[in-house]
């Protein structure tokens, strides 16, 4: 046993830690460094699926029925296989139309029906309250097990710790769950705290599992070996373990299907998966991380359950607290406390998210419509944002207090497991309307209403009332059929027996639900608004930016603005209109209330008060023309036209952008060129200026030193003038203003002339020059001076790079087809493969700076430019180590492009 004060202090400490995590999450969000923008955190937040029902109840169920605890987790696995298809679509729809709850989702799909929204909210509240009570009960029971206290619930309510626990959770949910008015903004702190809770409960459960399996026993094999000695336990791990005759395949299937639907339909799952989704790409990873989380948290359920039965020898309700009592019985008080904190985190996580989700629905879909209808609010001006937030806060408190009340009144009546399944079956009623609405355009509001009402009535009659009857609040003879009508017996409707009550109820309720949903949809006709919403939902992936807006009528911008101000606050309304003005390119005060603006305002308001209420409000400030089905089709037609235009526009934009990029890169090239020229000019200037200044400032400079400096100054000046000439030359050629004197030219004579000009260079370094010229070559049309310039450049390049003393340069002239080719080959180091592509670019000199012979880095670009201007080509043939061979060709017939 642990001292109650100690347990209370630990629980309180844990809640404080939770507040700290949430506050940190909100702070990070405020700094723009979201904590929850990760698929791992996203997946952990889905772990809110594992409530106290999992934490304590699974073991109880395993102790009774062996593997029968598993379908509840296999269903989510199957659902997650389709998450990328289904959940992503839900997220995209919710994001696009600012949908913030499951009631809103269904109502919006079927023509923004306030009635549907209210109905879904009502079903949720009725279905979920027992579930919240269950969490409180679990925490309270855990506390009793831990402290050895008895009958807490016998205490006066004001001495009951569970009440204060519920109140502090309400406080947490109020602080972190109602931060912004706009519900489509995420509750970053809350999500961070929930992800943290998921990690805590997993760690605590695994710790207990390891303790039981490897501390109390010698591994799972040992537990099983000992269990086999006891036939009742040994039989547990067979499919007929629940004591039915034969395998209840239908029940197994029903449980799998039920949990598969619930994992998407439970308000807390919808909140975490859809509303709080940061980035729909996270779904891809979270979809397998989440089932992996479920697998981990379930892996020790059977060992703990069987181990507990072996050690404690009872398989009754006591099994539900094995995680606490097993460590406690072995004196591991710390572990028991940790396990309790784990259970606390499972319960609190569920309660917080569920109350925030349910309070949103209650506020937007029950309270708001009533307020708006009362007229007083509809007329009055005034900012309603504060009122809205307060309604939501009150709803959170109310839901939790109702849950507590339920716990006090009915808490002892049920086992944990049955309550959870009743809630699951309730929310499963949403599945046909929600999933069908995402894929079937023909589904109508009448069908959805009929299906939901029919299904939930059957659920209440076949599942809810019998459990109430068993608590003794209505006569037990009700179970044999009201008024003695046995064919109406709630658990054997029309004599259908042989099923357990859950399967029976699920079968009938979903049958009625789907039959009415499909049947009424097929019989009736959708209104224009239903049809338009159907298209917006089903085809949400089909439309890019060009979404059709189904609205016609007249409205005044100032009315819209006042409306937006009331629900969004003046600042956000102002920003909304400013954005719209900017995007449409109109001045703020000349905005007209066209369909796009109306739609935009309506969506923003929907984020605050729900789509159905937003619709009512927008209707109240504008004169709308009712749309017919034909109008809807026409609007869609227009929208697809717009889409075609948009696509064309997009293509044109892409081309434009490419052209712009090209211009920019040309600009960049020019800029680079100027920068290089500047660099090349500044370098010799630097030496000249520095040396001149030094000589001036050092009157007693030695004469040898002075001569060296003067020599450098002279050569740098030459370099400078050469550079200036070449830059001008190149600029002239490139700009096409150079003068060309084209005549018939004998290439052999030009080569001889070029050799004479460079003879001194070759002789100086002892380089050998070989000629390989044919006897006769045809004349070409070219500018002889320019061509000589090219040849001299190539020859002096070769002379610079050959090794001193043993250099060899070969000049080859040959006719190839209708071209005359000149090659200048040397035995220098050649050009590295990496540099070959750039040797003809400006200022790309070969070799490193120190070993590089002097040059401006413009010779080759100029030569190539000349050859190209004469209608030829210039290229490089080089393999490193074998020297370089620069070659150019000139057309024989071709006329040099003389200018």
């Amino acid at each position, binding site marked *: 046993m642990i001292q109650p004060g100690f347990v209370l202090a630990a629980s309180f400490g844990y809640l404080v830690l939770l507040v700290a995590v949430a506050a940190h999450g909100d702070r990070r969000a405020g700094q723009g460094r979201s904590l929850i923008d990760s698929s791992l955190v996203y997946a952990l937040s889905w772990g809110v699926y594992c409530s106290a029902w999992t934490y304590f109840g699974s073991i109880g169920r395993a102790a009774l029925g062996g593997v029968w605890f598993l379908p509840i987790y296999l269903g989510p696995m199957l659902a997650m296989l389709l998450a990328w298809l289904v959940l992503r679509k839900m997220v995209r729809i919710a994001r696009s139309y600012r949908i913030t709850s499951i009631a809103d989702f269904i109502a919006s799909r079927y023509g923004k029906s306030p009635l549907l929204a209210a109905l879904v909210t009502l079903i949720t509240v009725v279905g979920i309250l027992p579930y919240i009570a269950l969490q409180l009960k679990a925490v309270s029971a855990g506390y009793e097990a831990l402290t050895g206290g008895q009958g807490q619930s016998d205490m006066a309510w004001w001495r009951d710790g569970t009440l204060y626990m519920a109140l502090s959770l309400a406080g947490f949910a109020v602080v972190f769950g109602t931060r912004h008015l706009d519900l489509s903004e995420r509750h970053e702190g809350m999500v961070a705290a929930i992800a943290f809770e998921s990690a805590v409960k997993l760690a605590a459960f695994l710790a207990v599992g390891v303790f039981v399996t490897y501390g109390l026993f010698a591994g799972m094999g040992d537990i099983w070996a000992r269990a086999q000695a006891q036939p009742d336990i040994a039989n547990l791990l067979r499919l007929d373990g629940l004591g039915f005759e034969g395998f209840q395949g239908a029940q197994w299937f029903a449980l799998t299907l039920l949990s598969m639907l619930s994992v998407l339909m439970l308000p807390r799952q919808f909140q975490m998966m859809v509303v709080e989704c940061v980035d729909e790409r996270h779904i891809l990873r979270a979809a397998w991380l989440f089932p992996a989380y479920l697998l981990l948290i379930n892996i020790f359920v059977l060992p703990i359950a069987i181990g507990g039965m072996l050690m404690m020898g009872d398989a009754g309700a006591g099994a539900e607290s094995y995680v606490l009592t097993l460590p406690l019985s072995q004196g591991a008080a710390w572990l028991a406390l940790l396990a309790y904190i784990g259970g606390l985190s499972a319960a609190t996580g569920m309660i917080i998210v569920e109350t925030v989700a349910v309070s949103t629905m209650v506020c937007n879909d029950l309270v708001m419509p009533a307020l708006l209808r009362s007229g007083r609010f509809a007329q009055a001006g005034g900012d309603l944002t504060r009122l809205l937030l307060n309604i939501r806060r009150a709803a959170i408190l109310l839901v939790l207090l109702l849950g507590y009340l339920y716990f006090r009144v009915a808490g002892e009546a049920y086992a944990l497991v049955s309550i959870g399944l009743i809630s699951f079956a309730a929310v499963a009623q949403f599945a046909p309307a929600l999933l069908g609405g995402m894929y079937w355009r023909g589904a109508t509001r009448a069908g959805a209403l009929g299906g939901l009402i029919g299904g939930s009535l059957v659920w209440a009659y076949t599942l809810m009332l019998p459990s109430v009857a068993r608590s003794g609040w209505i006569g037990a003879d009700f179970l044999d059929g009201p008024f003695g009508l046995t064919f109406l017996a709630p658990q054997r409707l029309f004599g259908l027996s042989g099923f357990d009550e859950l399967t029976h109820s699920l079968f009938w309720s979903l049958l009625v639900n789907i039959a009415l949903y499909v049947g009424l949809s097929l019989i009736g006709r959708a209104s224009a608004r239903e049809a338009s919403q159907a298209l917006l939902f089903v085809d949400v992936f089909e439309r890019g930016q060009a979404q059709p807006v189904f609205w016609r009528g007249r409205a005044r911008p100032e009315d819209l603005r006042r409306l937006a101000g009331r629900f969004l606050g003046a600042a956000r309304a102002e920003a909304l209109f400013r954005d719209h003005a900017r995007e449409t390119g109109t001045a703020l005060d000349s905005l007209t209330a066209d369909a796009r603006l109306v739609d935009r305002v309506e969506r923003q308001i929907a984020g605050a008060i729900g789509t159905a209420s937003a619709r009512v409000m927008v209707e109240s400030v504008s004169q709308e023309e009712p749309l017919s089905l034909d109008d809807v089709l026409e609007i869609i037609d227009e929208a697809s036209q717009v889409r075609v235009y948009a696509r064309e526009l997009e293509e044109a934009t892409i081309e434009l952008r490419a052209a712009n990029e090209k211009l920019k890169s040309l600009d960049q090239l020019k800029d680079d060129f100027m920068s290089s020229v500047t660099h090349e000019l500044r370098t010799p200037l630097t030496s000249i200026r*520095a*040396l001149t200044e030094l000589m001036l400032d050092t009157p007693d400079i030695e004469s040898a030193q002075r001569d*060296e400096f003067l020599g450098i100054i002279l050569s*740098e000046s030459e370099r400078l003038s050469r550079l200036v000439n070449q830059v001008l030359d190149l600029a002239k050629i490139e700009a096409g203003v150079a003068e060309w004197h084209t005549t018939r030219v004998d290439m052999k004579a030009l080569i001889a002339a070029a050799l004479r000009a460079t003879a001194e260079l070759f002789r100086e370094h002892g380089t050998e020059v070989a000629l390989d010229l044919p006897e006769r070559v045809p004349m070409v049309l070219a500018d002889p001076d320019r061509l000589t310039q090219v040849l001299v450049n190539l020859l002096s390049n070769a002379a610079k790079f050959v090794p001193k003393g043993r250099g060899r340069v070969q000049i080859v002239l040959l006719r190839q087809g209708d071209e005359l080719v000149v090659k200048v080959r040397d035995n220098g180091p050649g050009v590295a493969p990496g540099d070959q592509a750039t040797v003809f670019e400006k200022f790309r000199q070969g070799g*490193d*700076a120190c070993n590089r012979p002097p040059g401006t880095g413009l010779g080759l670009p100029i030569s190539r430019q000349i050859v190209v201007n004469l209608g030829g080509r210039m290229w490089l043939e080089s393999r490193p180590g074998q020297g370089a061979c620069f070659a150019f060709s000139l057309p024989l017939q071709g006329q040099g492009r003389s200018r």
Partner: protein
Amino acid sequence: MTDKVLIADDEPNIVVSLSFMLKREGYEVLVAPDGLQALDMIRSDPPRLVLLDAAMPGMNGFDVCEAVRADPGLSGVRILMLTAKGRETDIARGMGAGADAYVTKPFSTRELIVRIRELLA
């Protein structure tokens, strides 16, 4: 004790003028013809000051400067960047890399020596 100054520049004629100027002022002069050698020399025997050319083969001056600044053992080394590119972005980049001063070519030796004295004061 004379201060050691490293000249890292790939233009031999500029090295000639800089080393003459520094020797005249009484500094001990080391020369590195490219960025990699400059970094080696700075690491093996840290000088008081490096006159660092921005555009060098192998490893450019900005990278050398960043490498020196990333090494806490070399925090005492002052760096004066020399560059022939006077664009604003180059200056910003040099300062961003952690240079102590930035001088564009062509420079005045008189002004340069004042800057050097300031840096070594």
